């Protein structure tokens, strides 16, 4: 009896306590921060003018601290502030171009020799001055061990494109090519060919840099510390050769959960949030935040394993079966551009084609023609992005509607990459490559290329890529580019879905932020008022 009485008192108490606690939680975390609330630790001086600090919440962790081993968006975002390449990719009136950066001037001497004159006022973070020997060692290391550098600076049979790097004096190098290679400049703009001090390049000649003390570049920011899975802290490099950034301290918070990222900016602990879901835009705007919506190069696609689905008619049918307009308009709330090309139109020489319009009967007809009936395909999706899991369910429904049975399989991201790009053990897989140039994007689909997860192979396509590389005449090259893109488009080694917009939210006092289509923030002119 005594027990029952106690029980009667405790239950209402617990209920009231839970209610109070939930009201408190809602008040504290879900409502926008009040204006009067200022962080106690930040001094007013710190928030002003030249010595401002900026905190950016990003969705993924770094996969490496070695720029030449960088693969993911986060690697380039963070390490791209520390390192620079000979050339830089800039966005100009909605189109990308490649401008000389650590290079003062350059000249093509003949078909296979290029002269580069390096700036003489560039210093590394360790105080050493950049010279031609650093350039030689960095490029040789990139060609030797960088996973992306090996793709950029080697030909289809794996031979280095640059056969010799001759140092003329401390600021001049000549790159001697094995054969004419027209995409050289755009590939030297990729951060996988970033320049590091010669002694560090030689110290890590056959493996990735493993100490933050050796993360030394020429970029506007120095790496101060990096805690795996938590954050990276950068500080302004005072001897930077270019325009000094106005941000003195840059912190990247690694927050994989999108709701945690939203909470971080609403609570005031982050100034900028990268990777905002279209569904959260309205809420962020109503909280007084500024939302940027930028064109992206990330082409979201459903790769089709060409060894398991060899008939192009079946792959075309899958393209007709999916209503990408509806996906872009509804699932992504219009924050996406339907893919009518195999590479984003922000790159020069990209051609747009007649869209695969949503046409169920055409898809069914093509499947019947190809004899592809009563088949079950497994659709692999990474658990890293909840949006991809939603997309998988939409794709499943569209394919079921034309008679292809689809089973979804979610796997952890590392396992996903291995299944797709190493083991090629999948039927369909959702992912989105973010290339740095048109030529590089097209090489993904070359026979046996390391990013050719779907094992697409077309000898005509491969030959066209070789011809593009050696064609010096610009208008003839443009035609070859067009032909290659046309082949890829109709061979359809993937369901071409859409180009994802990049959505970034900032506090209203963050000004002058520029966003590159690779989901990369340019902080050159960014200020915190």
């Amino acid at each position: 009896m005594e027990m029952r009485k106690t029980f009667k008192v405790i239950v209402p108490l617990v209920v009231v306590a839970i209610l109070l606690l939930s009201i408190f939680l809602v008040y504290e975390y879900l409502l926008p921060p009040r204006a009067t609330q200022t962080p106690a630790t930040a001094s007013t001086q710190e928030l002003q003018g030249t010595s401002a600090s900026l905190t950016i919440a990003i969705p993924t962790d770094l996969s490496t601290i070695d720029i030449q081993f960088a693969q993911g968006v986060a690697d380039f975002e963070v390490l791209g502030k520390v390192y620079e390449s000979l050339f830089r990719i800039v966005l100009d009136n909605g189109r990308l171009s490649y401008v000389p950066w650590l290079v003062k001037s350059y000249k093509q001497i003949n078909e296979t020799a290029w002269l580069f004159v390096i700036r003489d006022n560039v210093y590394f973070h360790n105080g050493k001055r950049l010279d031609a020997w650093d350039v030689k060692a960095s490029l040789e290391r990139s060609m030797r061990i960088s996973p992306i550098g090996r793709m950029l600076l080697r030909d289809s049979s794996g031979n280095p494109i640059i056969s010799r790097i001759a140092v003329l004096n401390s600021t001049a190098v000549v790159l001697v090519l094995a054969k004419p290679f027209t995409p050289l400049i755009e590939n030297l703009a990729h951060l996988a060919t970033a320049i590091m001090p010669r002694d560090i390049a030689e110290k890590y000649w056959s493996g990735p840099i493993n100490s933050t003390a050796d993360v030394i570049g020429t970029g506007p920011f120095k790496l101060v510390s990096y805690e795996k899975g938590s954050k990276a802290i950068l500080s302004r490099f005072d001897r930077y050769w270019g325009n000094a950034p106005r941000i003195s301290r840059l912190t990247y918070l690694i927050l994989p959960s999108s709701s945690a990222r939203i909470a971080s900016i609403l609570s005031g602990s982050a100034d900028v949030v990268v990777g905002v879901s279209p569904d959260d835009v309205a809420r962020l705007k109503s909280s007084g935040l500024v939302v940027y919506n930028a064109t992206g190069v990330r082409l979201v696609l459903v790769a089709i394993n060409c060894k398991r689905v060899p008939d192009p008619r079946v792959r075309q049918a899958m393209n007709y079966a999916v209503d990408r307009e509806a996906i872009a308009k509804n699932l992504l709330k219009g924050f996406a551009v339907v893919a009518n090309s195999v590479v984003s139109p922000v790159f020069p020489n990209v051609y747009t084609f007649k869209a695969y319009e949503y046409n169920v009967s055409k898809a069914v007809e093509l499947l019947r023609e190809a004899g592809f009936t009563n088949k079950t395909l497994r659709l692999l999706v990474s658990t890293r992005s909840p949006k991809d899991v939603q997309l998988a369910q939409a794709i499943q429904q569209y394919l079921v509607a034309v008679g292809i049975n689809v089973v979804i399989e979610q796997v952890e991201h590392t396992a996903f990459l291995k299944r797709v790009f190493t083991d090629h053990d999948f039927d369909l897989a959702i992912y989105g490559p973010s290339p740095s140039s048109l030529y590089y994007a097209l090489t993904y689909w070359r026979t046996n290329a390391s990013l050719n997860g779907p094992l697409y192979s077309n000898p005509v396509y491969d030959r066209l890529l070789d011809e593009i590389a050696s064609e010096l005449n610009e208008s003839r090259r443009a035609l070859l580019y067009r032909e290659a893109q046309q082949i890829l488009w109709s061979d359809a080694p993937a369901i071409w879905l859409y180009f994802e917009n990049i959505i970034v939210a900032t506090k209203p006092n963050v000004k002058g932020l520029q966003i590159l289509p690779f989901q990369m923030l340019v902080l050159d002119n960014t200020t915190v008022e």
Partner: protein
Amino acid sequence: MGVWPKIAIAIIVAEIIVSLFPQLFTKYSSTAIDLSNRLAPPSTQHILGTDSLGRDVFTRLLYAIRYSLAVAALSLAIAFSLGVVLGGLSAIAGGYIDSALSILFNTIYTIPGLFTAAAISIVVGPNVIGASIAIGLSLAPIFYRFSRSAAKEILTKPYIEAAKALGASTSWIITRYIVWELAKPLLTTSIYLLSDAIAFEASLSILGLGVQPPTPTLGNMIAEYREYIFTAPYLLLAPVTVIAITISSLNTLANKLLSNPIEVP
């Protein structure tokens, strides 16, 4: 019987009915996508609104109860049969068999349950059967340890000695004494573990290792809706409330059984 156990029983019976005949309570399909009607707030058409793919949340909840209960029940059956049979065998046989089985189950027991379940789920494959096997195997040591020690204790009781002296066969002793003595505590443990299994399923699904979408389970719904905690918080509320209510009901029922002895004939 107090009011709480009655409510608990009512809730569990209601959930069982729902999981057997979900289609009686809704006119929608649990997987049909309607992209033009995403994240609609609760209305008379969709009483819990629609989710990120335009599916009716109430319908998904009904089917989620079905699949979550099915996984929980199947995994409990696996855990029960493995644990109780092998536990009893250990106690009766003794010797090497007992040592070998004890080492095996104690090893599984020392590894955190979710970790075991995740590892098994990767091997077996993520679907209803895979998730059930994973959860079942990680819960089996609890049944094993319990039934082994309980059976051992019963075997040393004087009345067993007496029965043996009177010439009772081993099978008679097992059915007449061990099974009956163990029935009630095993039932209580089962109900407790059933709520564990439901929570386990949710955890596995949040990690992406449980039943795969588009099949709804309570865990899958939480995994999907947590992304919308700021834009549509009510989405998350539905599966979370159902899990909380189900687990409390099961625990209330188990507590009731524990405090009221059942007479063993």
